[in-house]
């Protein structure tokens, strides 16, 4: 079988000492970021982008990938022990996980979160390996019209799943699309909306905006509430990591369902780990015989979301590696990391860079194994980190972010721009606009415009091309259907219900 040959090749690459080291560093940094509240994956990957300049491309991507899925593990630790989600993806884990910890069952909760994550990680690794080749073949049937329609579907998907008002989410996407158009036009080279500022001629850097909107804005917002967040740390020693047989029996189906749901949501553009964990929690609550147990320490409420977010974090590599479309902001930063090393993401990557693709897939499995060790026996070390007060942490994060942004292009202007976008992000939060769709719009903007223009050029200006090509028509129909479903009031109330969980 081709698949096994490929995976064997991947493991050969991933087991080289340098790549193992990169994988370990990625997993450690990811866990650290996940544990510490107030600094997210997006800001971290953006910050560490310049560090990968000096590394070989395979090692660089292995490390960045490790940070992404490592953060999913680390986030659950703080959710369970301190009731402060270290990551947006583990917000729902806190609901039941922290209750379990209060009942003295922190050990089993942590263990189930880690086991669920590990299982989901294994399944996702296999899934990427299995789906990679056929999807690449499908990608070859994609013309510009199909690419455009697929991205529209992805954006609509992000809107449907975003929290709060549909209108606001769409407005944020369009705002992101507009921001992506600053700089030189791809086809004519004309300078657009750059106001003769030379630093803007190349466009707004994606890492710059991401760091501002997610890094700086988050810090400013946290300072609003006062630097000292109340942390009711579970003080007693964590004894007995082993879950009981009943715990295992209860959580097995939840882990399976969470993995399946997370894998699907991860593959779809616009989805991702955050949405997957929310959806998994709702699913578990709906399926449970006694839903009132949720919120009082139900182990399924930990197992489902934790498996889902890890599965989604990994399967979101599929659209990137096969179609060249980044499905979320972290993947967009991965595109940045790839292009720094001269690799253009897309269908040809699988054939041209087998070392990179299969090495990365294999490293994910190894990384998951490392994470189990990092997280379970060493959990005490990570908890101790939480004692670092925020008043010391936030200036450090500001400095790290500033140095990181500066070193991407050695441009002081980038630092100022990131600061400006920090203020923009703060304003967005205050007016209840979601920053995630904005970033997705900015990521997909250039690709969308390019494919739209190309499709219309080929069809000689005929807009019906998007509907006459069957694949494109199907994609657009799904998008329209999704949007319709969201706007319909009956389903709307249900959708709100899904996301009010986080407010509890």
């Amino acid at each position, binding site marked *: 079988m081709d698949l096994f040959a490929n995976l064997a090749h991947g493991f050969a690459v991933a087991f080289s000492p340098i790549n193992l080291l990169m994988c370990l560093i990625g997993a450690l940094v990811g866990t650290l970021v996940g544990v510490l509240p107030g600094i997210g994956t997006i800001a971290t990957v953006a910050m560490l982008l310049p*560090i990968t300049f000096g590394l070989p491309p395979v090692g660089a991507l292995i490390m960045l990938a490790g940070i992404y899925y490592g953060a999913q593990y680390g986030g659950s630790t703080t959710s369970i022990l301190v009731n402060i989600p270290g990551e947006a993806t583990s917000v729902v884990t806190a609901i039941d996980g922290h209750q379990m910890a209060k009942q003295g069952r922190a050990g089993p909760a942590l263990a189930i979160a880690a086991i669920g994550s590990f299982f989901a990680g294994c399944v996702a690794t296999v899934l990427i390996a299995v789906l990679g080749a056929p999807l690449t073949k499908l990608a070859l049937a994609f013309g510009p019209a199909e690419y455009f329609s697929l991205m529209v579907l992805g954006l609509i998907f992000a809107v449907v799943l975003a929290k709060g008002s549909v209108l606001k989410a769409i407005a944020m996407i369009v705002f992101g699309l*507009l921001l992506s158009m600053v700089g030189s036009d791809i086809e004519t080279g*004309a300078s657009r909306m750059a106001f003769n500022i030379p630093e803007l001629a190349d466009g707004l850097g994606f890492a710059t905006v991401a760091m501002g909107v997610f890094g700086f804005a988050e810090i*400013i917002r946290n300072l*609003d509430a006062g630097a000292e967040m109340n942390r009711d740390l579970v003080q007693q020693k964590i004894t007995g990591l082993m879950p009981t047989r009943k715990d295992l029996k209860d959580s097995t189906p939840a882990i399976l369902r969470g993995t399946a749901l997370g894998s699907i949501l991860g593959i779809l553009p616009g989805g991702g780990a955050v949405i997957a964990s929310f959806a998994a929690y709702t699913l578990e609550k709906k399926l449970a015989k006694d839903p009132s147990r949720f919120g009082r320490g139900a182990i399924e409420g930990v197992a489902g979301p934790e498996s889902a977010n890890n599965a989604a974090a990994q399967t979101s590599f599929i659209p990137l590696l096969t179609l060249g479309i980044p499905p979320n902001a972290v993947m967009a930063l991965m595109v940045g990391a790839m292009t720094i090393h001269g690799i253009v993401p897309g269908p040809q990557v699988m054939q041209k860079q087998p070392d990179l693709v299969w090495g990365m897939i294999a490293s994910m499995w190894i990384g998951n194994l490392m994470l189990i060790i990092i997280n379970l026996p060493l959990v005490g070390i990570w908890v101790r980190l939480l004692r670092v007060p925020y008043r010391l942490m936030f200036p450090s994060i500001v400095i790290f972010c500033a*140095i990181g942004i500066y070193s991407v292009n050695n441009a002081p202007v980038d*630092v100022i721009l990131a600061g400006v976008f920090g203020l923009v992000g703060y304003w967005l939060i205050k007016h209840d606009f979601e920053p995630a769709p904005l970033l997705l719009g900015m990521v997909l903007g250039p690709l969308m415009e390019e494919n739209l*223009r190309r499709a*219309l050029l080929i069809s000689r200006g005929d807009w019906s091309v998007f509907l006459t090509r069957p694949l494109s028509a199907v994609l657009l129909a799904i998008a329209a259907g999704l949007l319709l479903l969201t706007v319909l009031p009956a389903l709307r109330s249900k959708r709100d219900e899904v996301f009010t969980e986080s407010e509890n």
Partner: protein
Amino acid sequence: MADTMGQSATATRNTSMALGFCLLAIAPQIFEFIWSIGTIFGWGAGRGPATVVMNHATALLAGAPGALIGAASGDSKKASSEVLLALIYSYPIFAVAIVTLFMTVRSAQDYVGGVILMALGLFALWASSDLQGMRGFSFGAGTAPRMFGGLLVGLSAAIALTGLLTDGPGMSHYSWRGPLFVMAAILFFALAIRPLGVVVSAFASFMIAAAGSRETRWVEAAIVGACLTAGCAVLFPYVLGLPMPMFPRFLVQ
């Protein structure tokens, strides 16, 4: 009694909101003016503050109505960028400000958010107005920005409208301390990294940012800041090999 109190409160609120929008309507002009002050000291090239004020004032007061009449009578003379800014950006926002005076705003959060977003959309429409549009059936450089700019204006108008029609949260509280000091730290770092190097700029920015919280203990912050600076000074230039100056330029030479 309570009713009239509430009414007068919304009335003052609306006036200040309308005034705020008026300020928003001429924000780009004000920004250009502030920017142009620099030319007095010889920073950057561009028009002096006097010319900027004159051009924008004539555009706002006389130029734009003139262009409107000209367009109505079929006179297709190309309008200057100031007149276009007044026509595309300032006038619609002024109109919104006037409308605001006569409206009951039921959700300030949505209404203000929508209007400011609309301003951004209008600004993008102006910024891309000098770009080439459709050439036959192929897109010009300006087609997509104008398309999405128009879409953003429409969507944000709808958001503002929901703020008028449905009840919702009011303006949330903005604090000034955090944003001010964090931004000051970022700005200082950006300006200082080239001339002063990592060591000075990182430590100083750390201390500025630390002022953003009332709970900061200064001795503790200074110690942590010094350790962090030392760590950064080793990590970034040496371990990671990123090119950046270490010490102030005047000390090295």
